[in-house]
């Protein structure tokens, strides 16, 4: 059987609550610069991830519509009449529908509007 446990509370830095909090605060103060550096490094990555998801979604939608359009145009169908139907089915954002039906290249503001539509 082991001898009784030793009471090390006189050496325990957490026994004095004020002293303990001061110790923790000292560590956090010294760590502040490193924590800020890490947070700043991560911020652009978070922003990029926020952009990437809706941008990829929009790209997938555009690809799907383009493929559908090619199929229907190739069959000689009236794409102007069919487009709204496809767009509705795929829930294509309105800005995207506009430049697709107008058969023009999207401008930067078109893409921005499309991304804004993707936000919850």
């Amino acid at each position, binding site marked *: 059987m082991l001898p009784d446990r030793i009471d090390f509370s006189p050496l325990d830095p957490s026994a004095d609550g004020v002293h303990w909090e001061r110790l923790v605060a000292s*560590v956090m103060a010294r760590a502040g610069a490193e*924590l800020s550096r890490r947070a700043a490094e991560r911020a652009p990555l978070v922003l990029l991830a926020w952009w990437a998801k809706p941008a990829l979604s929009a790209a997938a939608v555009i690809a799907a519509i383009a493929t559908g359009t090619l199929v229907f145009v190739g069959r000689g169908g009236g794409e102007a009449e069919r487009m709204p139907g496809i767009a509705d089915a795929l829930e294509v954002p309105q800005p995207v529908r506009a430049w697709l039906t107008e058969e023009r290249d999207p401008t930067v503001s078109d893409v921005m509007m499309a991304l804004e539509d993707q936000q919850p």
Partner: protein
Amino acid sequence: MTVTDAQLVERARGGDADAFELLVRRHLRAAYAVALAELGDPAEAEDACQDALVTALEKLEECRQPERFARWLLQIARNRARSLRRRSAVRAADSLEEARGLPGPARPDRDAEQAELRSRLLGALATLTPVQREVVLLHDLEGWRHREIAEWLGLPEGTVRSHLFHARRALRARLGAGLLVEDDADAAGSD
């Protein structure tokens, strides 16, 4: 639900101050215990464990097993304490000499009785081997189990129990019964 060390490490890597503070609060005392075992001086041990935590944050990507953050941190604390001890060998010896019998400097914020108890404990700890000090501080101060200490030190659990037995017996011989705590867990062998 308790957040795991692995989750906190991941968040701290991204600069999450709350996550890092939680890691500090969880493991600062264990780092202190290891540093105290090396240095024998509470003030220097506090410096060493603070250094260790800041270093751990700076090198957080080197923590290959975040779920074992505590053991990784303690290795840093031990290395830091040894480095401090090497650099101030004379100063450390003076602290141990003071602890062995001569009255050490009292902290202004502690009463005389606490200072005397501290001095007695440090003097008694100084008579142990380094591994005995580490085992008894991690177990009796920080509350680690035999198995955890064995994994940390890379020793069989039985060896850890043996070190703890001898450490407590030596401390009891020097301190008397005044600083003993009746421990039902140890008596039942449930640790």
